[in-house]
């Protein structure tokens, strides 16, 4: 029998450090809904002020978060998204990277909202129309769905009026029909495919009386604006779009890069209210955009840079992570079993890069546990790093 590997599901014992488990991720990628954010005050302030002014005034405002790889751009965007998602009056979409152009940004945004959410929006609009033209007063999507299922409201009475109003609000009749078709079980998948710009066959479009194809950046901007207008008409305060890894536009041909930036510019121009875009971008690419595409960068105007961690930042970060798995009251020092010196060494070696810090901390803690080290000293770190 081959005994080269020892594979076991036995858990490492971290109790000597008053920990239930190793709180650091083995693979430091941002969680979908991060619970911890060790923010750099200038960044959190800038994001808070951008988001708050959109929420308080309803006017559009945009921001670029720059920072080198591993400094926490994605984490920052995802954490902000998780905070905003808790609010009922906004819609938030996360775009992991801009892809080949604006249509891909739009596609990812709608996909991030998800089929159910878009269907919910369709029901919410039907509910608004129902309140206006019938005696019923549904307060939300679920209530509307129940009213239709129970036969309290006649679908054929409210659908024509809904399409009419949606067409007015969106100035895009095909988009209006696609939204309404989200509530029909026979066509909702076609409608979803059309809305996500995945493309559908002509016969499927015909079945929904949709005449145009949503297949280029211009249509993408139109569709995005249409969706935002629907949401504002439903009394949402705004739509937040988080575009991560924006630096990947540098991969595109100059023509496509220009086209993508132009489309985003058009989107911003057409949406002076209710839109907030946050970009995560590597600083060198943002510098290029700033110098070459004024029309675009001027519309964003604001930039905030994530810097490498300081000693203070690092201590706070390690404390926060450890506190997630603490079994007893906070020990002294709060970073136990790490010592101040070991953290200093980790900071030096990782050059303040948060991804590397988390990775090294995770490894050190595992090594210390398996070697039954009471403390993670600078020497121990030096030896194992």
């Amino acid at each position, binding site marked *: 029998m081959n005994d080269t590997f020892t594979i076991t599901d036995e858990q490492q014992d971290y109790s000597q450090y008053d920990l239930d488990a190793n709180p650091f991720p083995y693979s430091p990628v941002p969680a979908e809904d991060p619970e911890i954010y060790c923010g750099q005050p200038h960044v959190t302030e800038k994001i808070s002020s951008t988001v708050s002014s959109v929420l308080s005034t309803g006017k559009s405002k945009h921001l670029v978060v720059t920072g080198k790889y591993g400094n926490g751009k994605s984490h920052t965007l995802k954490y902000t998204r998780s905070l905003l998602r808790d609010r009922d009056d906004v819609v938030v979409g996360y775009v992991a990277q801009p892809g080949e152009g604006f249509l891909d940004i739009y596609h990812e945004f709608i996909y991030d909202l998800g089929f159910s959410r878009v269907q919910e929006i369709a029901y919410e609009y039907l509910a608004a129309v129902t309140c206006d033209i019938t005696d019923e007063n549904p307060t939300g999507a679920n209530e509307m769905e129940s009213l*239709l*299922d*129970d*036969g309290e409201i006649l*679908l054929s*009475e409210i*659908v*024509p009026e809904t*399409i009419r109003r949606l067409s007015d609000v969106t100035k895009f009749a095909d988009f209006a029909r696609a939204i309404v078709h989200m509530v029909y079980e026979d066509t909702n998948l076609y409608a979803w495919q059309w809305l996500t710009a995945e493309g559908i066959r002509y016969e499927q479009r015909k079945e929904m*009386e949709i005449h145009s194809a949503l297949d280029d950046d211009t249509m993408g901007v139109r569709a995005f604006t249409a969706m935002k207008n629907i949401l504002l008409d439903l009394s949402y305060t705004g739509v937040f779009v988080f575009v991560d890894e924006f630096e990947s536009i540098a991969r595109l041909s100059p023509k496509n890069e220009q086209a993508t930036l132009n489309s985003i510019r058009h989107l911003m121009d057409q949406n002076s209210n209710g839109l907030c875009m946050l970009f995560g971008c590597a600083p060198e690419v943002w510098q290029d955009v700033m110098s070459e595409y004024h029309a675009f960068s001027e519309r964003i105007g604001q930039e905030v840079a994530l810097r490498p961690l300081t000693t203070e930042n690092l201590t706070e970060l390690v404390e926060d992570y450890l506190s997630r798995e603490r079994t007893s009251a906070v020990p002294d020092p709060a970073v136990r079993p790490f010592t101040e010196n070991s953290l200093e060494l980790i900071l030096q070696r990782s050059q303040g890069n948060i991804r590397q810090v988390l990775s090294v901390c995770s490894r050190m803690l595992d090594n210390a546990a398996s070697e039954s080290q009471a403390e993670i000293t600078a020497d121990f770190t030096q030896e194992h790093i």
Partner: protein
Amino acid sequence: MLYRRRTLDLSRGALETPVLFPVRNIGKRSSDNTPEYVGTIPEFSVAMINTRSIRNREPMWNRLTDGVPLRKEMDVPEDTIVFADSGGFDFSSGDVDTTPAQTLDTQRQLDADIYGTVDLPLSRENRDAENDRRVEQSTKYALEASDLHDGDSLLIASVHGYDPQTVRNNIRYLEKNGHFDGYALGSMVPIRTDYKKVSKLILAARTATDKHLHVYGLGGLVYQPLLLYLGVDSFDSSAFIRSAGNRNYLVPGFGGEALRNVESMEYLPCPCPVCGQRCLDDIREDRTALTQHNLWALATELRRFRYVAESDRDIEEYLDLRFQGNPVTQRAYETAKQQVRRLS
């Protein structure tokens, strides 16, 4: 499996369902020349008639209002059960020239046992908005009829919709706002070749109500087993007349066959009272005989299904066999089977 047997209590007696209502052409012609079948085919002491056609054919309407009973005009026994639909199919393109009150009044005068409400059928060619308007209008007509109806006859609301939501929503809306003894699903004829869609719509209707469910216009040989499987209680068909007109011979278990394709045969494959003793040439020359045979074919198809169900045989196995000859209906049946299994 949603197949079910029920009994409808009518003033003329009990009617066992599922049942096929042969469509009579009374009113469509100067007189009813549908060949005799009531009393000959035992389970077909029933008929579907078109209220609007009868009312609009003046001489006939005068006779009926002068005291000639409908059943006498049709030359059928007095206890024949009559389902009088509104004739809505004639409104597919034209304007509605009646009101729920007028139609109900005519149905009363005809002494029909089952009334179908005035309806505006949908068309595939219409825009969604127009079809929505028609659905809404038919619903209003049905509710008007419900308000006016106070007799012993059954009132069946006509329901339309080209998607399951609309059908379900419509039935439940009518259920909340009116009083109906059952529902009749219409507008199926224009989409009859889309078996999957039709099955979905029927299932939507079946799951929306436990009351009597009728399907207008789809009681032909191929659809019948599918309708029974989906729990439809009654259906109507004029396929037996139309097929005979085209010299099409309905073969239970298969479908229609043009007689010119089997000219060399001496006897036809059906042992019904029409074909059993008569040779093919004889039947080909006698359209009445062909029409009567075709109705026997529909009866045989219905009896065969009932037999499979009553003898506790596996209906799905029977239908697997029944539909294997036609890939289109087979696919439709497979889809229906999946949906039905999810429900059971």
